[in-house]
């Protein structure tokens, strides 16, 4: 039974998702001791060749997948409208080389061994529905996909085995993607950009929730939380409420800070 992480990394004008993937793979190796497969495009690989010539050694396998379509989204409080390549995530089932896979976003700062607790579960599919900000507050936008619609699930972290059930789930994600503008109308969500969290949520709902949920909370830092320090024991943010030290895996909305941190470590 093979086990490993799968990450997707496609750079845009400002954010080197390739670099985020390399840094995260190093953390996964160090803390979780598991292999990582990266899915990227040639441009991202070329960029990494310049930034980190030995980047391939961080990964178990490298899968090249050119981004067939792009969309744009705002990063931060409306500051930067950048291209966003996130449309191949539904291919994870076809791509993964592992029997058990944790599909994870590159902007998750791994600090604990929590994710290793998911391996060997009796469930075929584990999805994430529990999340709070750094102060433990839950927002309604991460409870329902819209006020009157269905339950919200994060696509940010997901565990799956290669089974018929999960194949069906990922096929359903592709169907949702193909019919997204209509489904966006039905579920009262924006039609652009396509959001994988919504694709996950709609697919799960339409299949009658063939998944269990990840038993721990996904902590996220917002665009307003400034990353100021990382150590082996915690990561510190400057927030509206002062300095906040976190010893937990954190989903970083503010990719700029993460890139800055990685660049400092490189220096």
């Amino acid at each position, binding site marked *: 039974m093979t086990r490993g992480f799968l990450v997707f990394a496609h750079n845009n004008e400002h954010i080197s998702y390739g670099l985020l993937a390399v840094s995260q793979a190093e953390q996964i190796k160090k803390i979780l001791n598991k292999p990582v497969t990266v899915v990227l495009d040639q441009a991202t690989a070329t960029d990494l060749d310049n930034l980190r010539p030995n980047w391939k050694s961080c990964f178990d396998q490298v899968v090249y997948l050119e981004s067939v379509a792009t969309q744009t989204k705002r990063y931060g409080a409306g500051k930067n409208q950048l291209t966003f390549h996130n449309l191949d995530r539904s291919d994870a089932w076809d791509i993964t080389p592992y029997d058990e896979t944790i599909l994870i976003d590159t902007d998750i700062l791994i600090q604990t061994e929590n994710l290793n607790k998911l391996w060997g579960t009796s469930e075929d599919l584990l999805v994430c529905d529990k999340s709070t900000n750094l102060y433990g507050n839950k927002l309604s936008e991460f409870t329902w996909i819209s*006020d009157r619609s269905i339950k919200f699930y994060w696509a940010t972290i997901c565990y799956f085995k290669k089974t018929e059930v999960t194949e069906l789930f990922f096929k359903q994600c592709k169907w949702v993607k193909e019919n997204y503008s209509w489904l966006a109308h039905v579920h009262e969500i924006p039609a652009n950009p396509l959001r994988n969290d919504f694709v996950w949520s709609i697919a799960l709902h339409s299949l009658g929730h063939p998944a269990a949920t990840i038993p721990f909370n996904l902590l996220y830092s917002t665009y307003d939380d400034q990353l100021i320090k990382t150590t082996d024991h915690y990561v510190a943010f400057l927030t509206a409420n002062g300095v906040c030290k976190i010893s937990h895996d954190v989903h970083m909305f503010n990719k700029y800070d993460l890139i800055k941190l990685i660049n400092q470590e490189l220096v």
Partner: protein
Amino acid sequence: MSKGYLVMAQGEKYARQSEHLAHSIRNTQSGVSRLSVITDQDVDCTLFDKVISIDEDLAANSKWKIENRVKFYNLTPYEETVILDADMLFLSDVSHWWKMFEKYDLLLTSKVLTYRGMKIINSPYRKTFIHNQLPDVYSAFTYFKKSKITAEFFELVKHIVANWKDWTVRYSPEYSQKFPSIDVAMAIAVKILDIESQVISKFSYPTFTHMKDNCQGLATSNNKWTRVLGAYKGAASFKIGAFPQTGILHYVEKDFI
């Protein structure tokens, strides 16, 4: 033991709703499917097991017409009865519930759901119950069998409704309702008789989907759920918004039918 459902339908609107209710029970229930109606209207007799007339109208001067509901115990033609509200529809088979009901003399609904299947907690309509530590019971689906304790219970409910002000001053002084409410009267009776543990199920049923607008967990209040949520009837399913509905729907809004 004879078993059946019983509904009160006073006034034209409720009479028509009770007919829809009768259709839905016939179409979905594999077990108990008899429904009798207590009414002051002409109804389609073929839909009902028995049509019982309201002889003495206790609600003649009442806007909400709920005072006659204290007569359920005396008027039921069944030894085991489930009383229902007229503005309900059965959407799937709940016949297996009756097996569990046999263990009880009286069983009140205390868990109701939103259209998204979430348990309703801290409903803004339930301040009287919360602030007066009354059991959070819903009379819209209530089981009882003829017995000494249920006779006593309904007699007490009747007394509370008839002397509403006196009882509410004592048992629900906070957020007190000016007009009689069967839910509150039953809650007070349960509290006085100290039978809460005997009349509330530990299981997830009986339950129903309660479509009171402000209970749905929506960020915006819309006054009527029918203004903002679509209802869709397919060949084999019924949906509100994106959610397939099963069990019993208490649709509340009269324009829904």
